[in-house]
């Protein structure tokens, strides 16, 4: 990638016809800007910070300090009795949040690895925004797991570390599988986030001064853009893109085994693995469109990079995933009902007709009815703010789904004497605290990390050209990578 290969936009800018203009307006990859200008735009979007940003930042910090850290301190000092858990609901909102955040984290890998492997070109401007969600979502999932533990100060006992008593974690326990899977996912997704970041870090290093220069200098690992460096980087990214896909599928399958391997009615379902993976993608894609709509609406120059065509493409994916979720939901319900276990039948009845039946119906409306009725329309799914609300509804619906699977389902067990409905207490401020921390981390990252992988966009723009054959203008693609 040298400057000579740059598409000569300026030369042809004067005389393209109306059709070409339409193409350029619509598609980012057909609307190239000079590379220097584009780099400057990304740098500027990172460095321009308004007072509104700091106001939101301060409010969120206050919520994190109060909701997450102060309340967590109270929880540790006074015990899990501060939360709403009891017999038989030993697992509460903390584990709902764990599953929820791991679900959110799936979209990053889905978008950047699967779409990269399939060479879906529309992914280019927002792979990084999605990957950041993966890492930050996993941070919240980790926090939520530790909040849930009765003696969190002994959490290191779950790690396989050498100790005098030669005690290892119990590898029969799904929780140990979970810990290994989530740690693997966190490490590999962080590396996968970092690899495509190196050229952008080098770009930022060459265009900044002061502490930023030092910061980017360290993170760019001395990247200069030589042919050899690009080859190595591409090889590493290819290996990671393929290797991380099975990791992603396995993580949520293993999370589902926490429930599926247990003996409780409503959990002991063999379809839980794929059902959870599709559910994770459902909420994850919803979260991606929400983040993209906010980034586009609030950050400078982002309207150039993130266009309605991207929302349109993600909207199609969301529609398909919503259909997949509906299928697996129905499958899970049908198989459990057909199993004929009397406790499971009682539980299924409790889901829709119990005191939280409204949540069950809201889940179906938010996860199926709303996406299906909006996303089929090309115009509607191209609208950032409309799709933002669809994403919001999907995320609320998916949170409800996890709430129904965990605290609502454990209400009904095989000992009717113990049946009791869960009432959350300290979990509510702490959940809001985790959400605030996620947004806070994202906001901080948007000041430090180029949210747009500039080099990927430029690479795509170089490969795509408008070529005129006779009277017709068509999009041609030269070989990529």
């Amino acid at each position: 990638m040298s400057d000579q290969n740059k598409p000569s936009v300026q030369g042809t800018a004067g005389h393209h016809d109306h059709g070409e203009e339409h193409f350029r307006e619509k598609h980012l990859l057909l609307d190239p800007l000079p590379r220097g200008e584009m780099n400057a735009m990304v740098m500027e979007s990172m460095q321009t910070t308004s007072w509104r940003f700091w106001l939101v930042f301060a409010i969120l910090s206050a919520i994190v300090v109060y909701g997450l850290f102060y309340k967590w301190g109270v929880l540790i000092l006074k015990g899990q009795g501060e939360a709403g858990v009891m017999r038989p609901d030993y697992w509460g909102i903390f584990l709902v949040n764990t599953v929820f955040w791991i679900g959110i984290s799936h979209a990053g890998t889905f978008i950047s690895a699967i779409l990269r492997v399939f060479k879906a070109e529309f992914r280019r401007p927002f792979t990084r925004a999605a990957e950041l969600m993966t890492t930050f979502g996993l941070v919240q999932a980790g926090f939520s797991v530790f909040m849930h533990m009765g003696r969190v100060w002994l959490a290191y006992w779950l790690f396989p570390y050498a100790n005098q008593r030669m005690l290892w974690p119990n590898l029969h326990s799904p929780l140990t599988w979970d810990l290994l899977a989530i740690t693997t996912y966190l490490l590999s997704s962080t590396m996968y986030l970092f690899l495509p970041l190196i050229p952008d870090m080098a770009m930022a290093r060459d265009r900044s001064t002061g502490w930023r220069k030092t910061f980017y200098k360290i993170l760019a690992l001395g990247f200069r853009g030589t042919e050899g460096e690009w080859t190595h980087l591409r090889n590493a990214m290819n290996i990671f893109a393929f290797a991380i896909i099975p990791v992603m599928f396995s993580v949520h399958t293993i999370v589902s085994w926490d429930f599926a391997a247990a003996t409780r009615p409503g959990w002991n379902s063999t379809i839980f693995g794929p059902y959870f993976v599709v559910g994770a993608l459902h909420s994850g894609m919803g979260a991606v469109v929400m983040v993209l709509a906010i980034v586009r609406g609030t950050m400078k120059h982002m309207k150039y990079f993130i266009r309605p065509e991207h929302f349109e493409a993600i909207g199609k994916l969301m529609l398909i995933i919503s259909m997949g979720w509906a299928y697996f939901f129905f499958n899970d319900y049908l198989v459990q009902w057909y199993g004929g276990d009397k406790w499971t039948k009682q539980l299924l009845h409790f889901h829709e007709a119990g005191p939280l039946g409204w949540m069950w119906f809201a889940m179906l409306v938010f996860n199926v009815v709303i996406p299906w009725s909006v996303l089929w329309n090309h115009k509607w799914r191209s609208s950032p703010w409309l799709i933002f609300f669809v994403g919001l509804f999907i995320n609320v619906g998916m949170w409800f789904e996890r709430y129904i699977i965990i605290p609502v389902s454990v209400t009904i067990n095989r000992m009717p004497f113990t049946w009791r409905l869960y009432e959350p207490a300290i979990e509510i401020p702490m959940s809001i605290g985790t959400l605030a921390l996620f947004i806070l981390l994202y906001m901080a990252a948007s000041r430090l990390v180029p949210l747009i992988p500039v080099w990927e966009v430029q690479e795509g723009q170089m490969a795509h050209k408008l070529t005129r054959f006779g009277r017709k203008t068509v999009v041609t693609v030269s070989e990529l990578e």
Partner: protein
Amino acid sequence: MNSKIPEIKLSEEQTGKWGMVIDQDICTGCQACVAACAMENNLSFVGEVDAGYGRSMHWIRIERFWEGEYPEVKMTPGQPMMCQQCGSAPCEPVCPAFATVHSQAEQLNLQVYNRCVGTRYCANNCPYQVRSFNWRDYVRPEPLPNQLNPDVTVRRMGVMEKCTFCIQRIHKAEDKAKSEGRELTDGEFTTACAQACPANAITFGRIDQPESLVSQLIRKHGHGVKHLEELGTLPSVTYFKGG
């Protein structure tokens, strides 16, 4: 009978060693076992609010249900429910820290309080819902600390606990028999709940010895029921009802 169905042969570990028989027909539901268990095993007093919210700490509870529709309702006989000391316990494999383990010597499910980190997976996976979690550090008002049993650990906040079949009494009796150079005899000691039961509805002993009182009772009644046996948990407690 279809002879093709193979008979399930239980290994020595799965049949269990210690067991209990509970005659629900003579249980009066007086809760003496609950009180005796709490005294013997240093259970915390959780207070009115937490007990009302399903956090009561009892290793044994008397379950009673209504049967039928109003006005023709009938109380079911009292059903003392405690850890069934399963031969194949669902709580054991799910603990990530090996805090819930099977003892080879006593064939009981042990809870290692020191090792527990409080993930509460065992309690979730227990089909009998007999595990109690220390939701807080509960205060024992004076003079109750003077009553603590020195043979039993006092648990702190954040750990799981459950019925142990009064393992401290088992050990005491075994040690005594060993020091006197003899075998432990049936009925030499019993658990706190069985000792306190005024109706003798609870009997404790060796279920692996055919001449022990519990084995005789099981044979005599002939219609003993083990709870949720269909899950394959191999419980050690047998219930008699309607005999």
